[in-house]
């Protein structure tokens, strides 16, 4: 009977194709949306990803993510270094700064103050030459951080540092090595423009040594935001984090746990994520609704055929099995098509710089959602089926 059900399903090719594409579209939509969401969240903890040398992140006890931070005391670095199991610890300073371009335009940057000794956390694409230049006084490395068109400096010399006021609407070119901008009224030199992981929310970034960062920031902002820790060989990050918390009173999180914290923080606190989630939920509901209605309609249109089966002695269990087989068949095939399309589309959009990540939960969500809605639609379809009188097939009825 299961085979009959599947043959009935594919027998009407046009209807079956429409149904399949409808459900496949839902699988695609849900998976793509989840992939995009994963991409945004991945961008949200890009700073943690960039600092792969750090096993444990230490911060103020109130800090729950890399997005909303407050600084720790200068003493925190040495206190962390004193914890057994710490191989290496270095500071990182985060701050938002206003940078003024030579034509008078200004732009908010996230300033990332790196350990002066190691420059750990400097984007991988920055060459050793750039690292050397970053050690010179006043040097910074800038990056778009997922933005576009925000790192433009006047193309013409006459528009740079003019004496006759701002030259705002002038031709621009990307910032390059040797260009200068003002940060908090102090001149800095661009050592390079680096390519870094995109951020969520997107924002221009400015990397520099922590000493230079302190020079650029007002006194109350000059303390480190994080202490990054490398664990000794054989010491687990989790155990070390617990030890640091016990010994310093600071919050210490292993790298992956801090990523999860950050995602959770975005889910709870970010209005952007809330809006995005609402849109995604709407898309999912529409997709699920379409898929569910199409599946229901398919079963409903086949009611007469089921009545024939029923008249011939098919049991309710057999009929339910047939409907579930059809729904399951559609769900499995359509999910495969949807996920395949999503992989292709996701690769394309990711290659073009969009924040798409096919993390494990995206296809699981897509497949699970489609299976759920297929099952629900099938169960709803079963009701009229079970109430159906086999007498419906007689001419006089």
């Amino acid at each position, binding site marked *: *009977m299961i*085979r*009959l059900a599947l*043959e*009935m*399903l*594919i*027998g*009407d090719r046009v209807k079956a194709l429409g149904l399949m594409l409808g459900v496949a579209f839902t699988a695609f939509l849900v998976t793509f949306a989840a992939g995009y969401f994963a991409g945004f969240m991945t961008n949200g903890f890009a700073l943690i990803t960039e600092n792969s040398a750090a096993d444990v992140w230490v911060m103020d006890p109130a800090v729950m993510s890399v997005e909303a931070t407050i600084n720790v005391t200068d003493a925190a670095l040495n206190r962390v270094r004193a914890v057994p199991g710490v191989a290496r610890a270095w500071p990182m300073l985060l701050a938002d700064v206003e940078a003024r371009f030579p034509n008078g335009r200004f732009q908010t940057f996230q300033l990332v103050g790196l350990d002066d000794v190691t420059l750990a956390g400097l984007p991988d694409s920055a060459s050793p030459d750039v690292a050397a230049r970053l050690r010179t006084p006043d040097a910074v490395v800038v990056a778009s951080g997922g933005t576009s068109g925000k790192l433009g400096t006047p193309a013409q010399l006459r528009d740079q540092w003019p004496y006759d006021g701002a030259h705002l609407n002038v031709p621009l070119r990307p910032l390059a090595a040797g260009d200068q901008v003002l940060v908090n009224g102090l001149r800095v030199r661009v050592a390079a423009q680096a390519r870094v992981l995109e951020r969520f929310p997107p924002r221009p970034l400015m990397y520099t040594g922590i000493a230079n960062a302190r020079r650029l920031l007002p006194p109350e902002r000059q303390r480190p935001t994080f202490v990054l820790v490398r664990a000794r060989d054989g010491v687990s990050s989790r155990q070390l984090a617990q030890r640091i918390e016990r010994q310093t009173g600071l919050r210490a999180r292993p790298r992956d746990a801090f990523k999860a914290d950050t995602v959770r923080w975005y889910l709870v606190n970010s209005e952007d994520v809330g809006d995005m989630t609402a849109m995604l939920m709407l898309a999912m509901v529409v997709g699920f609704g379409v898929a569910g209605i199409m599946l229901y309609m398919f079963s409903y249109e086949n009611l*007469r*055929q089921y009545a*024939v*089966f*029923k*008249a*011939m*002695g*098919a*049991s309710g269990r*057999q009929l339910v099995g047939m409907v579930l087989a059809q729904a399951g068949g559609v769900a499995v095939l359509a999910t495969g098509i949807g996920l395949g399309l999503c992989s292709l589309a996701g690769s394309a959009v990711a290659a073009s710089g969009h924040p798409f990540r096919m993390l494990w939960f995206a296809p699981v969500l897509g497949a699970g959602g489609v299976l759920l809605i297929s099952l629900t639609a099938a169960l709803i379809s079963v009701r009229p089926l079970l109430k159906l*009188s*086999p*007498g419906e*097939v*007689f*001419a*006089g*009825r």
Partner: protein
Amino acid sequence: MAVVCQGLTKQYGHGSNTFQALRGLDLTVATGELVMLVGPSGCGKTTLVSILSAVIEPDAGECRVLGQDLIAMTPDEKTRFRRTHVGFVFQTFNLLPALSLAENVAVPLFIAGRHRRTALAAAEQLLDRVGLAGRADAKPGELSGGQQQRVAIARALVHGPSLVVCDEPTSNLDHRNGQEMMKLLRDTALAANRTVIVVTHDPRILGYADRVVHMDDGRIVTAPAPSSSERVGG
């Protein structure tokens, strides 16, 4: 006797919208007999065969079919009764367009849980008997109306039922196909001493009946005794 019913009544609807389909109907059909039920629309023919094939229950009366008391049966028992003992031929054939002819014929065997290979083999044998040898893999849409009704007859017989119920089997067929279909039904169904009950409006096929039962307003108007015959031809 294949069918012994007494005092069957059946009413549809409630309150002022009630319709009395059967009004104390008595009917007896002998084993191996081909009985045709005729009468105007709404006279209760379809309700009667629905009761006889254990599809619906009467409101009152007694009904024994093939020696079994239909009134006392549970719904599951009725389902098993239909599955095992009843074959159906419908006015609109009700073949499944997605399935091959052999699969259509084998549906009652699939429902009964028979293995696919043996079911299809049995179906092909029946198709041979109804003159559709070599068409087992064709789809119903490739056949004429007459051929489709042959497939429906094969389907009604494939599981060896003792009772075959036909609901207006010739009303969608032209005269020649109608005659051929009835001849085939007589030859194949009655050959195994099955009982056949045909609901029809088609006077041209009455000659194939062993007995014609006239109904009107939920009652039997004229019904020769099972031993006699009103058969006029065939």
